């Protein structure tokens, strides 16, 4: 969940801590060079003192003479050559340490000055940072090699000089760690061309396929005096955005070029048309302010720093020794990330508020506020929905389209929690956009002059008629994309889990049938049933339970399943199941005979030899 939000006060902290951070990063970056330099200094001074005590020239002069003798064809012994080679390695250690120190100073100081020079001027940031970041990443690659070399040689020289022994394993592991990291960084840096491509789980739609949606977009664009996107894609990620980056889609051979609008179908399902219009108005507000152009310029910087960080952190399990030489580089990359964020965050936030004005302009402030709250809540529920999807896959059961899973998850969250609690949870979250960050919901609502306490209580009661109706075959598209996600994720298929899953599925299906016997939908009863399920069963999934309630299964659909799964159940599981079904039957306080008969029937199938008496 953390990746989807950032504390709103981060920027302030970032500003205050910027100078301290710079000093701290410089200190970290100077540690290994200082170690190398002082080791070289100690050894070299010791050698020279020893030579001077014997009335000889300093090491450099002796080796210079040997070199000249060699050039003149005079014999120089192998021992002398080896001795001079060691001396030159020590001098090289000092030189390389100095070089590493200079690079270590140069990068953060340059970045620090660049941030101050660029300020919050988008043109300057777009001009300076992409090139500066690419250069810095190459320098960091060099730095990783240098730090690895310094550490390796320091250990080698210290051990051989002080203790006359060398632990080659130790030296080798540290060296290998830096070489692996360096090569990985080179490979990564070589791919940073500055032209960002984004991958989206989505499908491109045309005006012929979704005429109503295109009509709505045309209206919004006209109202705003903005321009239409070149491409519209619908997908199942929980976000709306416009971008000028190239977009790679799973079923398109060539990436989409030009300006692209991304519409989230799971979110669209939660919104009315007015709310969707407000969100689209917000997105086209970005076109109006050339925000997509600048986002495209900033995005490669984030992408470059992010991919370099991932490259370095990727082998975190490799052990401390192999990590040793790359730790300063990781810290430096994090610092650069923070510094760049410092420059762009304020711009991004002000542009978002401008775009919000556009959203309110085409619809209404209330509609935009409602959509923003819904999106914030939906983002909160996204990981849970993904987890539910994974559970479906693990159980090997038929997977519904992701939009339904998502909607059920959001429904469950809304029904279980108090609206005020939900608002409090989402109010300080920042929505994530692929290429920049958004202000917190509280800030945005304040800017729209919508106080949180006037949010209507029915906000979270999602209407049956949603804006997703503008997208024909929405469910089919979601189904296709869900399959892609399932195949994309490496999901474990655990037999033990599958057995447990089947038991849980039996619980859901039987509880849903009993619950649906009542004519009226009772929210309080549903919450009781969900709460009891969570207490009685490990991994009880409210979202999946909702899916089964929505399916409205008949008794005949489930009998075979009870027989099949019942054979595998322990006495304890059976007892828990029957207890739960009793709670479900009793949840609405309507002692219906139908429910009682159903429970007896289930009991008869599960334990024909002993009919369990259940008091409902």
């Amino acid at each position, binding site marked *: 969940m953390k990746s989807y939000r950032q504390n709103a006060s981060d920027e302030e902290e970032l500003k205050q801590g910027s100078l301290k951070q710079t000093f701290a990063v410089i200190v970290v970056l100077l540690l290994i060079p200082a170690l190398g330099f002082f080791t070289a200094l100690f050894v070299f001074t010791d050698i020279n003192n020893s030579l001077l005590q014997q009335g000889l*020239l300093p090491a450099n002069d002796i080796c210079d003479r040997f070199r000249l003798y060699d*050039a003149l064809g*005079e014999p120089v012994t192998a021992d002398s050559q080896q001795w001079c080679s060691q001396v030159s390695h020590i001098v090289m250690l000092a030189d390389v340490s100095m070089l590493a120190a200079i690079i270590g100073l140069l990068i953060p100081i340059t970045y620090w000055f660049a941030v101050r020079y660029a300020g919050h001027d988008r043109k300057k940031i777009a001009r300076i940072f992409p090139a500066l970041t690419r250069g810095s990443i190459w320098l960091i690659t060099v730095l990783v090699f240098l730090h690895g070399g310094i550490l390796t040689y320091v250990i080698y020289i210290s051990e051989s000089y002080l203790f006359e022994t060398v632990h080659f394993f130790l030296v080798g592991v540290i060296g290998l760690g830096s070489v692996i990291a360096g090569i990985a960084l080179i490979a990564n840096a070589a791919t940073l061309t500055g032209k960002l491509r984004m991958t989206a789980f989505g499908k491109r739609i045309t005006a012929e396929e979704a005429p109503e949606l295109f009509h709505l977009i045309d209206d919004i664009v006209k109202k705003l005096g903005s321009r239409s996107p070149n491409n519209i894609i619908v997908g199942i990620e929980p976000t709306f955005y416009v971008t000028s980056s190239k977009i790679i889609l799973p079923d398109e051979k060539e990436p989409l070029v030009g300006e692209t609008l991304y519409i989230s179908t799971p979110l669209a399902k939660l919104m009315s048309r007015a709310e969707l219009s407000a969100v689209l108005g917000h997105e086209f507000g970005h076109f109006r302010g050339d925000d997509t152009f600048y986002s495209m310029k900033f995005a490669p910087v984030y992408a470059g720093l992010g991919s370099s960080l991932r490259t370095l952190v990727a082998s975190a399990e490799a052990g401390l020794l192999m990590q040793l030489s790359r730790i300063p580089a990781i810290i430096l990359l994090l610092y650069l990330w923070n510094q760049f964020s410092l420059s762009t965050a304020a711009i991004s936030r002000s542009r978002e508020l401008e775009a919000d004005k556009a959203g309110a302009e085409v619809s209404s402030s209330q509609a935009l506020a409602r959509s923003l709250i819904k999106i914030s809540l939906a983002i909160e529920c996204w990981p849970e929905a993904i987890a539910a999807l994974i559970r479906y896959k693990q159980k090997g059961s038929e997977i519904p389209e992701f939009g339904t899973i998502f909607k059920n998850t959001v429904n469950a969250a809304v029904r279980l929690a108090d609206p005020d609690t939900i608002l409090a949870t989402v109010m300080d979250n920042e929505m994530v956009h692929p290429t920049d960050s958004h202000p917190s919901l509280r800030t945005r609502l304040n800017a729209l002059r919508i106080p949180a306490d006037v949010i209507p209580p029915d906000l979270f009661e999602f209407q049956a008629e949603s804006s997703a109706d503008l997208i024909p075959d929405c469910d089919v598209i979601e189904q296709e994309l869900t399959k892609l996600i399932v195949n994309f994720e490496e999901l474990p298929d655990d037999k033990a889990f599958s057995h447990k899953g089947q038991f849980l599925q039996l619980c859901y299906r039987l509880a849903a049938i009993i619950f649906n016997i009542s004519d009226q939908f009772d929210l309080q009863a549903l919450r009781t049933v969900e709460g009891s399920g969570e207490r009685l069963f490990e991994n009880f999934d409210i979202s999946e339970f909702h899916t089964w309630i929505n399916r409205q299964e008949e008794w005949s659909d489930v009998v075979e399943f009870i027989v099949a799964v019942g054979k595998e159940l322990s006495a304890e599981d059976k007892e828990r199941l029957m207890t739960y079904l009793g709670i479900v039957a009793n949840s609405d306080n309507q002692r219906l005979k139908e429910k009682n008969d159903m429970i007896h029937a289930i009991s008869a199938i599960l334990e024909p030899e002993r009919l369990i008496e259940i008091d409902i």
Partner: protein
Amino acid sequence: MMPVKHVLLRGLGGCLVFVMLGLFLAGYWHIFHARYFTNIENSAAVYEQISLRFYERKPVEKVSRWIAFIYEYELVQPDTLIDPVAYFYAEIFKQYPDKLEEWIKIIDSFSDRPGQRLFWTALWLSNSEKGREYLKKKYDSGASEKKQWLIQALAQTPPDLINIQPTSPEDNDVMWGAFFASGDAAYVINLIDVACLYDDSDDYRRFITAASAKWSLAANAFRHISVKRTLKAEAGKRQGVDKNVVLRILKMSEQPDGAAILYEETRQIIRDKQSRGLWLYQ
């Protein structure tokens, strides 16, 4: 607006950081990269230490490397070492004509470096067929400013050094160059003759030629046993004032600073003469 005091303090702090950084870098450079000698002095000293003993063991196989060394370490300085070094190599070229082709190739491979005149002079002085052929080839293809020198050299027969009496300190150096290559005592005897002949000359040029011959004989006799042997032999052969001159040189060659004493004596005589209104414009 930041107070002036703060601005000054910050500026001072910044300067201090830069000064400390500069001191640190200077210290680093001094410790790890400083030499007692500059490279050229060090390399010239080593070169001389090795090459000036050529006559003793005649390591012909190393001559190619020495030629390359002179070019690579840029030991050729205009108007200083050219003549003695040229005569040194001229003697070697004369002694080993069968190796000349190999050495000419080395010389030619450095034709883009300064100091071409040094080895052209050596080739001309060696008076060898191959040397003249090479100079002719260079004349045919060379640039105009070198053509003048080449045509003059090719038109003249080189001097036979062994029969020439030095008339300047530079001539003395040339004698030494030839001696260190050949080991021929005749060159040393030439210098002894000059030292004796003009010992008390009132002519400044003759005097300084004799004086430089004396201190160079003392210096080289200290380092080269064959020079000392020649001095002793000549002392036995000579009579009167000449004998005394040679014996004095021999005495001075016994001590490491003997040449320096002779040099200082020469300076004193010149100062005395100048105090009496003589040799004022030398």
